[in-house]
């Protein structure tokens, strides 16, 4: 048999006139036709495909056939792009991977380019061309975003729509000279959340767009370059780079900063920004590259077959559908009919008024993140009228409009007279609206929704509130809130996503359900991140799924996002069996159907039929709850402080957000927004509302700041924060006795002389240590070790405290995206190398790789450190040595031994091996220093625990509540915990952490006996410091400790738990459920801040603060009431 590979290469059977390159991207199709002979471009075009890739390809082929003359037999086609793979075969084209295509085009058209940044609709690519000096080979290092569309054109599109920037204005919006605000570029959803918040501060759209460009540039420079430097010349390719001036300028600003920092020499005679340019054909490089690839292909490769197979595919797109599709939302028309009978809400009919009638009513106003809603409630709780407006960016304007609408319905339409008895606000803008409108109450959103549900339904157990951005799950027992869950920073799969997807298909959200119910089958989506869902949508469309089917499939994502992603409650029966669905998204019956089905399926095996109701005014549930609060206060005799409808209509305001409004009361110097509101025509009604990030910024004179500071100081004194103390005391010098061996006067061997020389230099040696990870637990051990050996305390130099600025400045060399506590190490190392070393040179940087940690617990299986944290010192070294060895350049030794803290002798050996060459150490002095180190470590830990015990005793005495932060020692870092615990402290709660709880078997014997004695006596555990009753696989030191702290909190009457966990934490994830169950089973309030990373979503965090604070106050009141009511 003839080897196939060696068969004579076939020649085209007829003459090829044209070579065609088609780039089917995620949002556009681009095509180029060139002459086969001389490569002249004969035709080119690009168009958005609106997710109809196949259809758009057909249109392109039609046009190329008629306008450029291509036909089967006279051309070869080469297809590239993320949507091209499946389509290429249908027309006989050869598929070329897009990065390879772009690289070929760049090598041909711009051989001088060493770096390429291509931004597409949903993907971003960076290609670096590196010439190997030894072989002369030019190789390329390419990286693409593989899962997430953060930092791509899709985000720009979304934000442009949000900011209402006309498409015609966008290309010319500038970056240079525009003020930039912090926006998360990591994820489109986070970026949107940040932009939302900034927009509400009144910042102009142009600044927000420029800020987004900045975020996208930084995100790609930080993550996608994988730590490599983009060398000049840099080519900017792809749609956003080609069309958007601001995007180009953002690159031209940020890349030269890196060049400067990394000492990159620029070709003479060029300004930095000239070296970063978008070429004229920036859009077509992939298509041109595909053609270039085709030139190298012999034979029949890419022979155009004509459009017929593509036409057939388009006619019957379902042929490629995956077999694993699901039936539609309703199995039969009867089922749909029965569902509608049960759940179709009765249309709202506004109350009718008589001309001249005096209408007394309360107003509930919900200033949400995406819309503003208002209701008019009669004194007996009936909804008289409603008003709604999509957020226009300013909550005052939106509120004026909806309140005006209510008034119009009563006074203008009916001729009645409206008398407002009270006003309650809720939602994102509740405080501003309270101040401006004189509202009687500003109610936390979760509480407002609860109030509303409680009014309409008897004993609801689970309130499922799905709004535009927020998903809230409120769990009740006997009419009391017992727990709640909120989507954290991610608003994945929320109502807004369903709406925008439908609108993307040209289907208004009101017709979503009708469309989705028509689908006989639907694709099966995953759940969670909206961005992944977006790429699934594109893929399903490619497979031929129709809009209605996709909408039906997406509806089924909603309950999974609510109950699995947000609530993390696979066992629905544990939540309760009476569910109330409310929030604007519940107006969508397809979403309701999906939730009803999901809930029923979850209960199927129990034989219980869950009761599921939809709130009669689901979109306005929050506003109604706020209105009820105003009504309650009125009934208690409080006269309303509402400024009145007339005054509302006369409100004038100006928004100022500029350098003049910048806060100067602390080093953060945050930008604030001044809202100068004038009610009525004169100066008497004028007031200034300051929108600021903290209490101090909310005033504008130093005396007020002092007053606030004094108040804060008093709160801090009354509520000690052990997290803050631990984070501060851990770095203090230990000043131990000397462990150093006396130096001999002379030595007879070279080794001896070397040792004397090294030991003599110890007092001058400067050691840098990154202030990260396990150092937050073990710095005293190492401080004491070095100090006792003669290193001066001031020469042990820790990197600065983590800040957002530090992260932005120093993290661009990282090549991976692990948890934030690990990622931040690169920034700390950068701080040591560039800042601390710059101040006074460092001789060494010490960053041990913790393999095994210490523990006070008993009967655990192991005390492993987390592998991510363990190996971080290696990834850090890679980051700073891969292009040039920055450590060697600075003459800094990097010492990062693997250490086992449980095996003290091994640890001593490991330290001796690491430090002998630097300190000229002897074994005995090393052993003494290790002993001193451990002694100081124990002193440090026991000192904190003693303080904690005092606070706890005081707490018991006063019978107040304290919060235990269930988080690892590095969560003490204020830059990692985003100062959330400090905020709770200000609210009046003493703060503990898992590593500061009292646990001394002798000193705390009484406490441990009270908490664990019964368990020991009943044989559940053998020792108070044991976790075998709750956890079997006790291998991870910090996880073990967290579990024990959870047990402690669950048993202590004055403690509640707040869990902290970082995004991607592999040691926390397996114990999530156990921690939750340990705390909650005992009836102890439990809250969590999981998936924490560099992003700090202020709105979501504030909502949590407020809700948790509200909840804890209720909990404490209940405790007190119980105490008062209990028989002595």
């Amino acid at each position: 048999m003839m080897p196939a590979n060696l068969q004579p290469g076939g020649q085209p059977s007829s003459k090829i006139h044209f070579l065609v390159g088609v780039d089917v991207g995620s949002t556009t199709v681009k095509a180029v036709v060139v002459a086969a002979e001389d490569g002249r471009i004969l035709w080119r075009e690009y168009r958005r495909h609106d997710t109809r890739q196949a259809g758009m390809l057909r249109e392109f082929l039609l046009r190329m056939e008629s306008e450029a003359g291509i036909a089967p037999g006279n051309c070869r086609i080469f297809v590239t792009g993320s949507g091209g793979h499946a389509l290429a075969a249908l027309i006989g084209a050869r598929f070329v991977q897009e990065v390879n295509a772009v690289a070929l085009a760049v090598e041909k058209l711009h051989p001088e380019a060493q770096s390429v940044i291509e931004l597409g609709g949903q993907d971003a690519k960076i290609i670096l061309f590196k010439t190997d000096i030894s072989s002369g080979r030019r190789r390329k290092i390419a990286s693409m975003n593989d899962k997430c569309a953060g930092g791509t054109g899709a985000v720009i599109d979304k934000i442009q729509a949000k900011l209402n920037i006309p498409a015609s204005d966008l290309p010319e919006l500038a970056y240079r000279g525009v003020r930039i605000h912090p926006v998360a570029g990591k994820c489109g959803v986070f970026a949107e959340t940040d932009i939302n918040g900034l927009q509400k501060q009144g910042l102009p759209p142009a600044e927000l767009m420029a800020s987004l460009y900045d975020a996208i540039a930084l995100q790609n420079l930080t993550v996608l370059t994988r730590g490599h430097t983009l060398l000049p010349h840099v080519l900017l390719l792809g749609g956003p780079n080609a069309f958007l001036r601001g995007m180009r300028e953002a690159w031209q600003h940020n890349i030269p900063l890196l060049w400067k920092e990394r000492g990159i020499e620029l070709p003479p005679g060029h300004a930095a920004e000239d070296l970063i340019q978008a070429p004229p054909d920036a859009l077509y490089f992939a298509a041109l590259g595909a053609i270039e690839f085709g030139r190298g292909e012999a034979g029949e490769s890419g022979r155009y077959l004509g459009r017929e197979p593509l036409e057939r595919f388009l006619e019957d797109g379902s042929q490629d559908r995956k077999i694993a599709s699901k039936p539609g939302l309703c199995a039969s028309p009867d089922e749909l009919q029965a569902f509608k009978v049960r759940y179709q809400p009765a249309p709202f009919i506004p109350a009718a008024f008589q001309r001249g009638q005096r209408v007394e009513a309360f107003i509930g106003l919900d200033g949400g993140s995406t819309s503003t809603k208002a209701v008019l409630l009669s004194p007996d709780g009936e909804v008289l009228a409603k008003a709604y407006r999509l957020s226009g960016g300013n909550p005052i304007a939106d509120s004026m409009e909806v309140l005006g609408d209510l008034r119009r319905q009563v006074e203008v339409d009916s001729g009645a007279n409206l008398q407002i008895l009270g006003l309650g606000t809720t939602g994102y803008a509740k405080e501003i609206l309270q101040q401006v409108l004189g509202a009687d109450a500003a109610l936390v959103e979760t509480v407002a929704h609860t109030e509303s549900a409680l009014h309409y339904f008897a004993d609801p157990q689970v309130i499922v509130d799905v709004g535009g951005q927020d998903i809230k799950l409120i769990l009740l027992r006997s009419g009391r809130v017992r727990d709640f869950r909120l989507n954290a920073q991610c608003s994945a799969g929320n109502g807004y996503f369903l709406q925008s997807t439908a609108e993307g298909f040209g289907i208004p959200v009101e017709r979503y359900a009708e469309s989705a119910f028509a689908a006989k089958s639907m694709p099966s989506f995953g759940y969670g991140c909206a961005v992944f869902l977006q790429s699934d949508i594109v893929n399903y469309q490619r497979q031929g799924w129709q809009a209605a089917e996709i909408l039906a499939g997406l509806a089924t994502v909603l309950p999974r996002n609510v109950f699995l992603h947000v609530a993390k409650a696979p066992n629905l029966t544990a939540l309760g069996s009476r569910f109330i669905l409310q929030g604007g998204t519940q107006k969508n019956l397809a979403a309701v159907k999906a939730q009803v089905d999901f809930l029923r399926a979850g209960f199927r095996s129990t034989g219980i039929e869950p009761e599921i109701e939809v709130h009669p005014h689901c979109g306005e549930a929050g506003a109604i709850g706020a209105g009820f609060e105003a009504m309650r206060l009125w009934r208690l005799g409080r006269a309303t402080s509402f400024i009145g409808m007339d005054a509302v209509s006369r409100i004038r305001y100006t928004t100022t957000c500029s350098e003049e409004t910048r806060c100067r009361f602390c080093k953060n110097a945050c930008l604030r927004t001044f809202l100068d509101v004038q009610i009525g025509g004169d100066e008497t009604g004028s007031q200034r509302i300051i929108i600021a990030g903290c209490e101090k910024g909310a005033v504008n004179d130093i005396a007020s700041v002092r007053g606030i500071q004094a108040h804060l100081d008093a709160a801090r004194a009354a509520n000690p924060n052990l997290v803050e103390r631990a984070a501060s005391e851990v770095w203090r010098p230990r000043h131990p006795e000397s462990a150093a061996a006396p130096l001999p006067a002379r030595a007879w061997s070279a080794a001896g002389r070397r040792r004397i020389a090294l030991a003599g230099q110890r007092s001058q040696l400067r050691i840098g240590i990154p202030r990260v990870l396990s150092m937050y637990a073990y710095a005293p051990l190492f401080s004491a070790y070095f100090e006792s050996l003669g290193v001066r305390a001031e020469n042990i130099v820790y990197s600065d405290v983590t800040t957002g600025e530090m992260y932005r400045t120093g993290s661009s060399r990282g090549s991976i995206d692990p948890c934030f506590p690990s990622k931040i190490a690169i920034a700390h190392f950068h701080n040591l190398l560039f800042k601390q070393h710059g101040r006074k040179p460092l001789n060494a940087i010490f960053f041990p790789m913790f393999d095994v940690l210490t523990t006070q617990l008993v009967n655990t299986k192991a005390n492993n450190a987390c592998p991510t944290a363990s190996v971080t010192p290696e990834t850090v070294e890679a980051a700073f040595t891969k292009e040039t060895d920055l450590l060697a350049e600075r003459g800094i030794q990097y010492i990062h031994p693997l250490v086992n803290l449980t095996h003290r002798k091994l640890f001593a050996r490991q330290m001796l091996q690491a430090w002998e060459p630097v300190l000229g150490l002897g074994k005995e002095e090393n052993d003494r220093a290790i002993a001193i180190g451990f002694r100081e470590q124990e002193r440090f830990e026991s000192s904190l625990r003693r303080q904690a015990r005092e606070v706890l005793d005081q707490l018991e005495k006063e019978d107040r509540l304290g919060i235990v932060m269930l988080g690892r020692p590095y969560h003490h870092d204020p830059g990692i915990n985003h100062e959330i615990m400090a905020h709770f402290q200000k609210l009046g709660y003493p703060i503990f952490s898992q590593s500061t709880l009292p646990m001394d078997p002798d000193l705390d014997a009484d406490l441990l006996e009270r908490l664990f004695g019964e368990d020991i006596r009943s044989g559940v555990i053998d020792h108070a410091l044991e976790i075998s009753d709750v956890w079997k696989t006790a291998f991870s030191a910090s996880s073990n400790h967290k579990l024990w702290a959870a047990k402690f909190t669950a048993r202590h009457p004055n403690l509640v738990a707040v869990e902290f966990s970082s995004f991607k934490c592999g040691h926390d994830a397996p114990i999530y459920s156990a921690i939750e169950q340990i705390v909650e089973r005992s009836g102890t309030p439990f809250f969590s801040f999981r998936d924490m990373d560099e992003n700090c979503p202020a709105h979501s965090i504030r909502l949590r603060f407020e809700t948790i604070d509200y909840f804890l106050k209720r909990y404490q009141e209940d405790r007190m009431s119980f105490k008062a009511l209990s028989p002595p």
Partner: protein
Amino acid sequence: MRLDCSFAGEALPLQEELQRSVPAEREQLVEAPSFHHKTGHYRRPVERPFTAEERNQVTILFGGFTWKHERFIEAILHASGYRCQMLPTPDVESFTFGREFGNNGQCNPTYFTIGNLIKFLRSLEDQGYSRREIEEKYIFFTAGSCGPCRFGMYESEYRLALQNAGYERFRLVLYQAEQAIKAAADNPGLKFTLDFNLGALNMLNLGDVINDLSYRIRPFETVPGSTDRAIEDVVNRLSHFLETRRKFEILERAPRWLAAPLRHTPRLTGFLNVTGKILDHLYSAEFVAEMREARLRIEEVEVDHTRVKPVVKIVGEFWAQLTEGDGNFNMFSFLESEGAQVHIDSIGGWISYLLRQSRISMEAKKGLDGPYPEARGWELGKRLTNAWKYRRKWSLLRLSEVLWSYLYARTARHLGGITPRLLSQRELARLAHPFYHSQARGGEGHLEVGKNVYYTTQGLCHMVLALKPFGCMPSSQSDGVQSSVVNRFPEMIFLPVETSGEGEINAHSRVQMALGEARVKARAEFDAALIASGKSPEEIREYVARHRQLRSPFYPIPRRRGIAGQAANFVLHVGNLIDGRTSLARLPGKR
């Protein structure tokens, strides 16, 4: 009832309201006492044992490897008298089940494998089994570990997901390498005899080698599907052999004159029995003969060694680099469909890593542990005891390493000799250590780096693809240093792909990106080889057509240093054959 309390920061006449509602409050508080008294405490679920009495009624479920390995596991379980059933390869639906019922934030293998079990249990329910029946009639058998990553906590995660899915009483049985079998019973249902453990060794080796063979041969087969058919036949045959082979019992095998006295010397009998079993399992003529038959069956597959295929070496996290389904985006079949030859990794390599790590960890503590850790310099007896204990354990570990490598190599040799031996762990550690500490645990880290450097510098592949599940801690960290590794070795084409269960198209696209470069490299290497051979394609083709053994999958093609491609090495060899500079090599087993 309405909430009647103030919100944050407001001082309202709460007490008045509370006083008015005292009776209702009291009733409520009595209704929900745990709300105020921290009394009810969580306990982890009680584990139900699987006992010997249940052995005949209970089916052992297992999975997580390739179907080839699993068929052999099934055979040895059957041979030991157990009922068992292998689970299908985990797919995206399994992943969804895993996410639904497990904790959030798990790594991918957790979701896939746990979800796969739940998916299977659900399918049993669909067949009419009640949950109670399922809990009584099935158990799941899986590997345990002591960490340091999430793997150490898999057991708890399995239990949680099963509980959340409604199978609270479902039982898990763990196999832990260092503790053999853990079963919470005095008379455990699963008892692992020497025969089972030796069978397991054979199972792993056979599974690894046959799996590797399938990937090495399939890209070159001239009749599509012929490799898969041959592999299936071979797996059937070998598993039948493993299942039905006669167990070695010294008293049955010994001649009558010896058997009688042996019955009276139980210790000697025991020793001979153990030795005999070891030799029988590993060296018996029947086993060697079965492997020869297997080789002959595979040899029926005709191949075309001249196909130019970029060689892609797979490294990565243990499970992601092994599974053959959605768990790694069906990466192997995708690569083959894109024209690549895949060199997969073996489970055997992981075992030799574990053995070496145990020894190295011991070496690090040399002189620090022992029965007399505090022995002073002059306490010679104590020090000698310490040294003896250390040396004995060290030697056993070293012997295990050597034996394991030998056994693997022997299986590879009997099955055609074209699959490589296990790599030297020492060499991998040496290559990785400058970048990634070789004693940092969670082997994916340094092994990925070591293999990347080894395969590239030895010219054994055109591209290294690291498959790592989303969230894998050591594997992600190794990525952090690979960017530095890539800078040091300019010829390296290295691509890490995170397998998340979602985003398959993007992952494939990235692989195509790197493969494009590898393809160019392979083509250039082939073209250069063709030129160096001095022969035209026609000459090569004609020569191959005349010599059937050159179309055998087991033809031992000599490998030139630095040339990775099979086709390039082949044309160089054929060039030499035509010129008479060398002679045709013998096929293994042919005289």
